[in-house]
Structures are given as C-alpha cells and as structure tokens.
C-alpha cells in the first residue's frame, strides 16, 4: 500500500501512452498527452511527501515544523507551464493540419512514408 501513489503514476503513464498509440483524432491524442503529464505531477509530488508533513509555507506554522519537500513543488510548477505550452503548440499545428487535410486523424496524415 505504501507504493500506491507511485503505481497510480505508472498507470496514468500507461493509460495516456495507450491513448496516444491508438488515437484516431489529434485532439484526443493531445488530451492523452495531458493524462501522461498528470503522471509526472503525481510522481513528483508523492516522492516529496512526508507523513503528517505540512505545506512548506511558514506563514502560519513555526519554522521547525515537519514540512513536505518544496523542491519537487517548484519543479511541478515548471511542469504545469510545460503542459500549457505543449497543448497550445500542438493545437495550433492540428488546426492548420485540419485546414490542409480536412481531417484530424493521425493515420490519415502520412504524406511521408517508407
């Protein structure tokens, strides 16, 4: 039970990856990527968790209290920004591809093959 959060992270990665592999719609594929990204948040924050720890914000708690890891939280903040940028860029490409090909099916976009 003590590794349950890590398993959830692995599960989210697998689910998202499965979605990307089998996707027939680029919008769906992008959402699958955000599910994979959720896996990175869950893993980062759960490895930094301390049982009965408080948030590492010392506005209301004494400075010697047990707190969870602030570093992984700072890393996760960067990760959230990456999520927004990935979605924005991919959507821009998909909207253009749809204009061009009249479809958002990745399997129909195979001008380069072989």
């Amino acid at each position, binding site marked *: 039970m003590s590794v349950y959060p890590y398993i*959830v992270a692995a599960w989210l990665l697998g689910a998202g990856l499965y979605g990307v592999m089998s996707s027939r719609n680029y*919008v769906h594929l992008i959402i699958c990527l955000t599910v994979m990204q959720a896996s990175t948040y869950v893993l980062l*924050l759960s490895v930094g968790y301390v049982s009965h720890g408080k948030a590492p914000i010392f506005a209301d708690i004494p400075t010697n209290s047990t707190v969870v890891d602030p570093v992984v939280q700072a890393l996760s903040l960067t990760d959230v920004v990456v999520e*927004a940028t990935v979605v924005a860029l991919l959507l821009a490409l998909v909207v253009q591809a*749809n*204009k061009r*090909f*009249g479809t958002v099916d990745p399997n129909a976009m195979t001008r380069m093959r072989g």
Partner: protein
Amino acid sequence: MNGLLAVLLTLVAGVGTLAVAIREPVRQTIAAGFLSLLLALLFFALQAPDVALSEIVVGSLAVPLMLLLAIAKIREQEEAVNRQPPEAQQEGEE
C-alpha cells in the same frame, strides 16, 4: 497514507483512464478538466497548494478553453468540407 489520499488517488487514476477512453472530443475535454480539478484536490492533500492553484487555473481553465476553441474551429472546418469537396484530402487506407 490516509483514506482521503487513497480515495483521491483512485479517483485520479479512474478519471485519467476515462479521459483516455472517451473518444468524443468535447466530452473528453470535460473529463480532462475534471481530472485537473481532482489533481488539484490531490495536490492540496499532498500539501502542495501552489501547484494545486496552478493546476486549477491551467488544467481546468486555460487548457480546456484552448481545446474547446480548437474543437469549434475543427468542427466548422469539417462542416465546410462536407459542403464542398476538399482540395487536398488524404486517404486513410488500411
């Protein structure tokens, strides 16, 4: 690990799977927004309020907004395509 965390983690895994399993873009966007909300709750429970706030605003606000606008655009395009034959449509064989 306490019960609240276990429940939230299970919910996140479940809704995450759902967001992959749903194939209809608009409903999927709603599922993804809901996933972000659950993630934010999980982050609060994991004592990460900063990340939780960011996740709420990005995951349930900015990203769904972008997705919905793009979906609307794609739908319009598809309607236009259905009305007139497209100039460069690719075949999706196999």
